[in-house]
């Protein structure tokens, strides 16, 4: 079946550096994507989303880039802080009726070194 995946299972960065977490998706019908952050002992928390009619969206210290040509999604975190250490998941969804559930990737662990 079609799935969402991640290139790197673990990413280690220095505090203050920028982080880039990548995600490949295979369902060409997906038109909505979400990034979640999951800290130890907690459920996933929404970070940022993007629809397929956009190729970039910015939030506070985070930017999501979407390349539909190669079906690639990335999350950029500026000036990474220790509190950013967590597992990050991308998820895809087909908007509209008939499909309400998200398909998640397996996650990337971000470790921020002081």
């Amino acid at each position, binding site marked *: 079946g079609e799935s969402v995946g991640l290139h790197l299972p673990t990413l280690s960065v220095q505090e203050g550096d920028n982080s880039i977490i990548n995600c490949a998706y295979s369902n060409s019908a997906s038109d*909505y994507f979400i990034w979640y952050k999951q800290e130890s*002992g*907690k*459920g*996933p928390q929404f970070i940022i*989303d993007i629809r397929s009619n956009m190729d970039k969206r910015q939030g506070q210290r985070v930017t999501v880039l979407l390349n539909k040509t190669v079906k690639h999604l990335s999350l950029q975190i500026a000036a990474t802080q220790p509190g950013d250490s967590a597992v990050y998941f991308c998820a895809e969804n087909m908007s509209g009726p008939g499909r*309400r559930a*998200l398909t998640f990737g*397996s996650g990337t662990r971000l470790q921020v070194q002081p």
Partner: protein
Amino acid sequence: DVKVTQSSRYLVKRTGEKVFLECVQDMDHENMFWYRQDPGLGLRLIYFSYDVKMKEKGDIPEGYSVSREKKERFSLILESASTNQTSMYLCASSLSPGLAGPGVNIQYFGAGTRLSVL
């Protein structure tokens, strides 16, 4: 803020027991979901519900059932728990995707229930 509450953080059960995992959301969301999370496998959808008394199978429904008698509550039932159902279980809720506008498919998660079946 949206709040999704799972009744237990940790549960230990024996093989063959019937197990109920409860989830309540306070934002009047139409959709509710149950996932299990295992190392290296990410989140896998067990069941979801888009309305009271309505349910749909997810990717791994075998060995599970669900109940949605009220809009705010979605229960996951393990009829006869087995050791391979030891996992972290996550509940989520979201608005109906029929609404226009951005962010309608954002799922909000509870803190999770870590179930051990011995």
